[in-house]
């Protein structure tokens, strides 16, 4: 064996050993997490992996055209994986493993592909470098040491590749020279003038540079953000098969701990998520809290979970207490309480994350720990908790008042075994003066359709949405069980809701409590009635330019995007205008996740930001589809002192005007 092979074999063994050890040390930490079944429905999972990892479906989007550069990288990387495997094996067994042993046709094809792909990779590196240096986007830490090390290493690999093959071509030692345009260019035009001895030395030097860079890359991977090269493909495989629109139940036993206060109280997939973050910053770019100047930064939440795991994981694995608190104020490795309370659970981060990291369940999990174990939360939340628990509404109004609106108009009560569909009004629709207008509009519409419907009046209870999102799972569970018993008792099977929050809670959260109801939001329900010919609308003028705002819990959480738009079109005769951020990328009004009931002290309020976005479309009417949004958008207009006559209407009011 030549000394070169011997030296390389030793280097290879050390580097690969180090890589495997690093992987073992890091990935074994994931096993301290709690169980979570992510191995069901394998077929579905494989196709997700193909689509999202190999197809890069979420990486390349209209809003993130730069993702194309990543897709090029990704595919170059996969193809060059073959070339580099051959490179390493050839280094170990020069006589028996070599592409050049293949028949001409195969050899020429492969060398051609590798040559071209390496060139693409080099261009992609240069573009990425240029972007980071000259046009860094706001939402990423563009100029990190980590990024430059990796880009530098990849560039080195490509340059070494071309130098190696170019020199061989210049020496006349490469039979595929004709099929390697870039290397041939290098060999024939740049290196050709060098003397033969120098070229031979260059071949050896380039080979070693390539070898060291490749092994260095391998060893550096697990310690950098590029760990996602190893984890993002499996993370797409393990991604939730359903929309992440609910949080898991907790079990309340004596002596247990609740929520996530230590990193091992996350589920293993949450920990794996933290290893998969690509630091692309898209979550920040879409987070209403980050964008309105709050301290919450969803990317850093994930990053800090990872840092905490790396810091504490081994100790916890040994049964010792963690050294670094998970929720705390340290600079790295802790998530602060403030950050946790700033989240509106709007889901924008999860919607754009290219590797399907699930931010909201983690944030709610940590909130649960604060609420259930430590009783620490922003002051104003306490009265909300007490009001919900004692009076089943956020304001603490006497429960009997809930039925008051019913006495003001013509509303049928829900009757067991007779009424087909329950109209679940919700707290805002029943108590709040402004939003009672939507309730009355819906009452009109349902009466007009001549269907069998009814309300519970003062028997209705709050669904508990805000409690669940704020982490008060214990009281939420009590409310959910009470509602489940009430619905079962009355034989309720079909429900239509006014509020997207009730909708999501009854539809998705309550399934965990054994309720399988046919729940629809009124926008779905009414459109069906129109299609069935039970309601007729006549487009009426007078709304002017209508812009539509997607509610998070209707759109992102439940995919209801088209129905409201269609209803606006039927009612006004025009397709609504769209804000720059709409549908999947809609921007929260600022009320979700319990924020309807919380103070927002910082200078810029989320609702003001959203109203500014709406104003860009110069609307006469801002149409929304959620009582929280009604309040937030109206308040935003007032706070911004907008004097133009802009109406904020709930979709129900828009439809009511068009009733024939």
């Amino acid at each position, binding site marked *: 064996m030549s000394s070169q092979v011997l030296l390389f074999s030793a280097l290879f063994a050390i580097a690969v050993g180090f890589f495997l050890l690093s992987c073992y040390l890091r990935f074994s930490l994931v096993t301290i997490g709690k169980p979570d079944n992510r191995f069901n429905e394998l077929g579905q999972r494989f196709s997700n992996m193909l689509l999202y990892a190999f197809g890069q479906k979420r990486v390349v989007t209209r809003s993130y055209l730069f993702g194309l550069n990543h897709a090029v990288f990704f595919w170059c990387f996969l193809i060059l994986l073959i070339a580099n495997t051959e490179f390493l094996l050839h280094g170990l067994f020069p006589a028996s493993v070599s592409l050049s042993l293949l028949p001409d046709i195969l050899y020429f094809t492969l060398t051609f592909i590798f040559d071209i792909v390496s060139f693409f990779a080099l261009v992609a590196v240069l573009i990425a470098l240029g972007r980071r240096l000259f046009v860094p986007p706001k939402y990423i830490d563009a100029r990190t040491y980590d990024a430059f090390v990796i880009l530098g290493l990849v560039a080195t690999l490509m340059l070494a590749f071309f130098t190696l093959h170019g020199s061989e071509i210049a020496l006349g030692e490469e039979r595929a020279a004709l099929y390697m345009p870039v290397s041939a260019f290098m060999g024939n035009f740049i290196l050709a003038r060098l003397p033969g001895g120098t070229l031979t030395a260059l071949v050896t030097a380039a080979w070693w540079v390539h070898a060291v860079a490749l092994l260095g890359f391998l060893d550096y991977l697990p310690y950098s953000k590029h760990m996602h090269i190893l984890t993002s493909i499996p993370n797409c495989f393990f991604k939730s098969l359903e929309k992440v629109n609910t949080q898991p139940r907790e079990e309340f036993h004596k002596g247990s701990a609740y929520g996530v206060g230590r990193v091992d109280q996350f589920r293993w997939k949450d920990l794996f998520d933290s290893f998969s973050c690509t630091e692309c910053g898209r979550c920040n770019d879409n987070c209403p809290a980050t964008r309105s100047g709050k301290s919450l930064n969803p990317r850093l939440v994930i990053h800090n979970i990872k840092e905490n795991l790396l810091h504490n994981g081994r100790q916890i694995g040994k049964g010792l207490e963690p050294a670094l608190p998970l929720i705390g104020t340290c600079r790295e490795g802790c998530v602060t309480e403030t950050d946790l309370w700033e989240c509106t659970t709007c889901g924008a981060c999860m919607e754009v994350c290219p590797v399907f990291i699930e931010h909201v369940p983690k944030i709610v999990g940590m909130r649960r720990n604060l609420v259930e174990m430590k009783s620490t939360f922003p002051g104003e939340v306490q009265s909300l908790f007490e009001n919900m628990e004692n009076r089943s509404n956020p304001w603490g109004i006497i429960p*009997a008042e809930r039925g008051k609106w019913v006495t003001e108009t013509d509303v049928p009560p829900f009757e067991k075994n007779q009424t087909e569909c329950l109209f679940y009004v919700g707290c805002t629709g029943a108590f709040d003066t402004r939003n009672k207008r939507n309730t009355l509009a819906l009452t009109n519409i349902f009466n007009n359709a001549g269907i069998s419907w009814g309300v519970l009046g003062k028997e209705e209870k709050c669904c508990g949405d805000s409690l669940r999102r704020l982490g008060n799972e214990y009281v939420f569970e009590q409310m959910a069980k009470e509602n489940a018993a009430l619905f079962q008792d009355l034989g309720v099977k079909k429900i239509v809701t006014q509020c997207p929050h009730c909708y999501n809670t009854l539809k998705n959260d309550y399934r965990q409590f054994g309720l399988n109801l046919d729940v629809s939001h009124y926008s779905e329900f009414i459109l069906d009635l129109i299609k069935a010919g039970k309601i007729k609308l006549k487009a009426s003028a007078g709304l002017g330019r209508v812009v539509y705002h997607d509610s998070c819990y209707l759109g992102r959480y439940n995919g209801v995007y088209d129905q409201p738009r269609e209803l606006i079109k039927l009612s006004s005769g025009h397709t609504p205008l769209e804000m720059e951020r709409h549908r999947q990328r809609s921007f929260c009004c600022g009320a979700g996740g319990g924020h309807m009931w919380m103070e927002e002290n910082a200078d810029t309020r989320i609702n003001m930001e959203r109203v500014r976005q709406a104003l860009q479309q110069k609307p006469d009417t801002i149409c929304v589809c959620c009582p929280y949004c009604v309040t937030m958008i109206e308040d935003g207009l007032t706070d911004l002192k907008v004097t133009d006559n802009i109406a904020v209407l709930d979709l129900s009011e828009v439809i009511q005007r068009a009733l024939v």
Partner: protein
Amino acid sequence: MLIVTCIKQVPDTTQVKIDPETGTLIREGVPSIINPFDAHALEESLRLKEKYGFRVLALSMGPPSTEMTLRKALAVGADDAILLSDRAFGGADTLATSMVLAEAIRKISAQEEVALVICGKQTIDGDTAQVGPGIATRLGYSQLTSVDRVDEIDMRRKRITVRCKFEGRYEILESSLPAMVAVLREINRPRYPTVPLRIISQEAELKVWDNRSMQLSEDKIGLKGSATAVRRIFSPDREKGQILAGDEVNDPDQAARRLIEVLVSKNLISVQ
């Protein structure tokens, strides 16, 4: 050393209506809550426990359903709870109530030294503010009423300093222990229970003392031992309210203008 916190379970008076015919309260279907003043008394006891290491015992006289309220006291951190419940205690006014409570505290103090009895200033259903002082008088404790701040407890000298809030003035009072402290609502903000404590409190064993264990003379307790009786409860007649409706109420400026007009027209205010 022990702090005894006296707690009363009361009907949520904001939801209670008066039966105009019988002149009594309609209590059916009205949820019971911890008397809000007592929630502050409990919170203050828990804070003193955290600061000075007392044990906190929640004491209540009432029907068996009062158990729920005592469990809530355990859920926020009371160490023990005793329910005084017997038909013979029923129908008591403040005289008979403070009698039973004082005797219970006397019995408790035979086992463990009592440093403080902390009560809410008054209940929201009776509004008398007499039970706390009644207990103190019977036990010969000093009484500190209308307390809005506990400044210090000197455990060695067995003395307590508090601030009392009276109309137009504060008084800083120092007294020896044991003492009865009756607190105002502004003294603190009651805490929210943690889940582990809630779960423990659900399963905790409550001590129930009836009159067989108390051995009090039937003439001194319950209806018989009461010096006062409620003859009738009624709401004073008042003019029916008026709701200002219309679109303008959504605009604060216009709404204020409209309100002023109405108030002026009724001669309730005058504009110069």
